[in-house]
């Protein structure tokens, strides 16, 4: 699946997008898997309460299942308008 990062999440991880092959069942599982990879992921996902997640471009939450999802995006709370 494609994993996208925006704003300071993107800056901390250092890339806007990557393809991840994972057996993670939920978003939270995926986050744990990414955190265990490298320090920059651990830094980006340090406090998930400060983050939002979208699954296939719809806002979702960290307990949501990933089955069938093609695009996961992590970002800070939005500041539009």
């Amino acid at each position: 699946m494609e994993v996208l990062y925006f704003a300071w999440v993107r800056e901390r991880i250092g890339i806007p997008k990557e393809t991840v092959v994972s057996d993670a069942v939920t978003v939270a599982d995926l986050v744990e898997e990414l955190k265990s990879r490298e320090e920059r992921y651990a830094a980006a996902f340090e406090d998930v309460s400060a983050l939002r997640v979208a699954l296939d471009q719809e806002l979702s939450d960290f307990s949501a299942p990933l089955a069938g999802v093609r695009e996961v995006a992590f970002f800070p709370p939005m500041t539009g308008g």
Partner: protein
Amino acid sequence: MRILVQEEPFDPGAETSAFAQGRGDMGAVVTFTGLVRGDGGLSAMEIEHYPGMTERAITAIAEEARDRWSLGDVLVIHRHGRLVPGEAIMMVATAAPHRKDAFEAAEFLMDYLKSRAPFWKKELGPDGAAWVAAKDDDEAALRRW
């Protein structure tokens, strides 16, 4: 209904004119324009967005506004990229037979765009660049709808 997500500047006045033109059945047009504020020595603002999701999220917000209020039309324009103080960041316009619907729908759209459309603002000032933090107030504003 017209939704534009663009890097190019736009003219809020010209958009207002076009939006208000020939609405024989609508008595009320409300517009909101958000401008880049130059206070605190801000020199520029950079707006990042999530292409694809942005348009979907704004369309969903605008459709919800049309379900909730009696509206003749809705316009949302939101820029991304680099902006300088005084420039228009975004605008919302609503047309309705009555003023209450036009006002409430415009405020609803603004509250949702602030916290539910995937835009992130970065401010460039004398102390460097900093991401704008989401405000508790903006999250609280959603609860009234």
